[in-house]
């Protein structure tokens, strides 16, 4: 497996910077004071139980949800204060891979991939679009699926096409929502490898949401544990799990006893 390249990370240069972030839905408080920085070039895995607000967190980062309180700065912009034009300009620089892939099921694979490109760059000709599609399909290793409909793909293939669709706009930041959930261990390993290849080839910084420790360990430079609306621990794999905290230990034990 292609291992994650450990690079020197400049702690000055943060691409995402979140402080004092709160978010609730009605009476349900989901995020209760998140402080977090993602530095340029690093992969950070966010771990946490189901329903702790991991998806909510990255949806706030791309501006799909609005924070109640707190600061969210992405590539130098306060996401919640942008006009729709500026927000769109920022979103092009962020790739968002959805938990359930969210492929457009009325379009085939080619159209799924070409759609974000043709909608955002009006001046491309057919050949340039074809080449871009070819390139990202090659990156995810599915060049033979060009004409298939999403409903005819397997779960793992859908995840790959979902990732390819975000790569086509050449993002600087990748947000992966549970890239390996619901996949067998071998396919998971392939997706992890893909995440690492993407980091190297496209030079991205990534947030990887997961509750799979193998994925977290192999795809990220740092981990963050999300527990009860806060980041309980942030650090390297060993730093986070070298602890006596019952809740963190429970997470660790559960993953490896299985």
């Amino acid at each position: 497996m292609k291992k994650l390249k450990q690079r020197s990370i400049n702690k000055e240069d943060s691409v995402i910077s979140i402080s004092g972030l709160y978010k609730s839905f009605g009476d349900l408080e989901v995020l209760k004071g998140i402080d977090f920085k993602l530095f340029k070039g690093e992969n950070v895995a966010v771990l946490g139980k189901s329903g702790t607000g991991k998806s909510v967190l990255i949806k706030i980062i791309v501006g799909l949800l609005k924070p109640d309180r707190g600061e969210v700065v992405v590539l130098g912009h306060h996401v919640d204060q942008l006009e729709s034009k500026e927000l769109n300009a920022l979103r092009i620089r962020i790739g968002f891979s959805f938990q359930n892939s969210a492929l457009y099921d009325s379009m085939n694979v080619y159209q799924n991939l070409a759609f974000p490109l043709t909608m955002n760059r009006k001046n491309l000709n057919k050949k340039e679009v074809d080449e871009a599609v070819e390139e990202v399909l090659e990156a995810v290793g599915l060049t033979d699926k060009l004409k298939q409909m999403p409903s005819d793909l397997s779960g793992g293939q859908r995840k790959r096409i979902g990732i390819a669709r975000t790569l086509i706009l050449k993002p600087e930041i990748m947000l992966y929502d549970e890239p390996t959930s619901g996949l067998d261990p071998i396919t998971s390993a392939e997706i992890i490898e893909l995440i690492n290849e993407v980091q190297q080839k496209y030079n991205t910084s990534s947030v990887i949401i997961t509750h799979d420790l193998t994925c977290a360990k192999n795809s990220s430079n740092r981990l963050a544990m999300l527990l009860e609306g806060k980041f309980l621990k942030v650090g390297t794999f060993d730093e986070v799990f070298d602890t006596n905290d019952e809740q963190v230990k429970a997470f660790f034990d559960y993953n490896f006893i299985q």
Partner: protein
Amino acid sequence: MRNKYTFSKGVDEYFSGIHKAYLFTALFFREAFKKPFHLREVINQCFEVGLKSLALISLTGFIVGIVFTKQSRPSLEDFGATSWLPSLIGIAIIKALGPLVTALICAGKVGSSIGAELGSMRVTEQIDAMEVSAINPFKYLVVTRVIATTLTIPVLALYCSFVALYGSYLNVHAEETSSMISFYQSAFKTISFLDITTSVVKTLVYGFTIGIVGCYKGYHATQGTRGVGKAANQAVVLAMFLIFIEEVIIVQIANWIR
């Protein structure tokens, strides 16, 4: 605990629903006249609307024409006034039945399919996926569909009226020999320019209603797959309800003008 509702849960939700629908419609008018216009998608949707309902409209229009003529004949015969039959039929079909039958069929076929399509795109996060790739889903999905129904349904209604008149002609022709041309001539004899205008305005309004209601219900679908069915269902019920109200209002206004 503080009381969250101004009146009660039901009443509050009712009024906030109306407010949301109003904002949705207002947003349509703001977005509809801004670039990009997605002309190709509008044309696609026009074909969708037309092809989906053409067979049913042909059949229903034809049968309505025959049956209506058959049923009216005896009462006119009592007065020895069967020669008025074509103009009676003309008034009934062009002014009332054609537009209404078309609108109800399209509310059922087109409204429900728009509701279900957008609903499933919402709950599977395809709409969010568009948003994060810097595509305005409201423009691409809602504006194009509403324009398509608004433009297509008047054409379908016109077609429906002609098919119904043809059905009626066949019935008339079976009883007494009359040429098709003289039948159509007498059918249109008592129809004024105002009548035609009213019918066209009516069908434009119905088309708009079917599109905007279907999109509104689908766009705001919640609760997973159950929500998709609910959205489709509510789209039909609400569209039909509004169509009847609009029918009464427009006929009333036309009478004042006359």
